[in-house]
């Protein structure tokens, strides 16, 4: 599936809305083809075996279906939203501890977010993704380890032999580059 820049991110949003409004199984199948293998990879990198990761990836995608009415495309891309669902599932699964979540923002009564906000957010997300793809390999891997590995920064240091200060400054440098790429 050719990732077609921001176009793709907006397509995913429409898919989630079709699931929300019409329980559209074809839209769900598309999302599943794209995201389930990525969620499975994420869970395996965090230490789950293939069978557990497979089962949890299905579970994460089923959660997307059940929570479609809670998705706000003015605040997150579909990829970001799925990441947060998968991350929380991973904490249940591998750490077996609670994850306290912030209170939800209490929005006004409006049902649909502003279309311009949705477009802007989805385009920013697409640019961020492009920026990550362009990072030097070592910086991209560090960010990936920070998010995918169930590792604290000090554990990353133990594995790569880099001192903690270096790791932190490298992560900041990588983030800085990402922020610039988004401007």
């Amino acid at each position: 599936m050719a990732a077609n820049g921001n176009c793709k991110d907006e397509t995913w949003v429409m898919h989630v809305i079709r699931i929300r409004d019409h329980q559209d199984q074809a839209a769900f199948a598309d999302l599943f083809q794209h995201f389930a293998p990525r969620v499975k990879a994420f869970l395996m990198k965090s230490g789950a075996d293939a069978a557990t990761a497979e089962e949890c990836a299905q579970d994460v995608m089923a959660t997307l279906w059940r929570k479609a009415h809670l998705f706000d495309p003015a605040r997150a891309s579909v990829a970001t939203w799925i990441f947060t669902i998968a991350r929380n599932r991973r904490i249940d699964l591998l750490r077996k501890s609670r994850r306290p979540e912030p209170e939800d923002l209490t929005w006004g009564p409006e049902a649909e977010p502003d279309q311009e906000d949705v477009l802007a957010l989805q385009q920013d997300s697409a640019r961020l993704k492009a920026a990550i793809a362009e990072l030097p390999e070592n910086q991209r891997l560090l960010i990936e380890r920070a998010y995918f590995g169930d590792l604290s920064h000090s554990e990353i240091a133990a594995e790569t032999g880099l001192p903690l200060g270096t790791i932190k400054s490298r992560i900041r440098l990588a983030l800085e580059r990402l922020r610039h790429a988004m401007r």
Partner: protein
Amino acid sequence: MSEEIQHHISDDILMAYSAGVLPEAFSLMVATHVSMCDVCRAKLESYDALGGAVLDVPSDAVAMSDDSLAATLAMINGAAPEPKPVPHRSGVFPRPLQDYLGGDLDAVKWRPVGMGVKQAILPTEKGAASARLLFIPAGAAVPDHGHNGLEMTMVLKGAFSDGDERFARGDVEIATEDHQHMPVADISEDCICLAVTDARLKFNSLLPKLAQPFLRI
């Protein structure tokens, strides 16, 4: 309220929360602060966006089994949609904290720790990190102490000063290992804080040191 917050959660901790690698006690601190602070909420959601972007980078997919889509559709067939999240509960404490207490301020089971200071340990996962509520009477001080590792203290009610810095509701004081500090509550009002530590505190004076094993801090 949020525009008045002066002392925020640091970026590395927000990022670790987004990545889901913090001990539960520190997650509780972040969730409680973000409930009150739009600045940190926006930062946190950008770190989530970074997580989403990393997830979506195409190189690393692992194929699902052939029947996985059918199995998932069977799972959601007839499943009820998730209920909407519970609306904001009013009270002194933000909701993540109320969830741990089973209520608001009046649900706290305080235990005296001396000189009018009281505390309540919160039920987070066992380990090096712990979370507790601290009650500091108006005008009183928490004994001067250093500690191993990291300590974060956030004001929930009232205010305290430490040296020449002042912390009011929502403000977080982050103290590292070599930082000696002594929060002093404002004279006008009792102060209630959420404090999390990632190792046992080291007290400097003898009595609090003797009390340490009982305080579990």
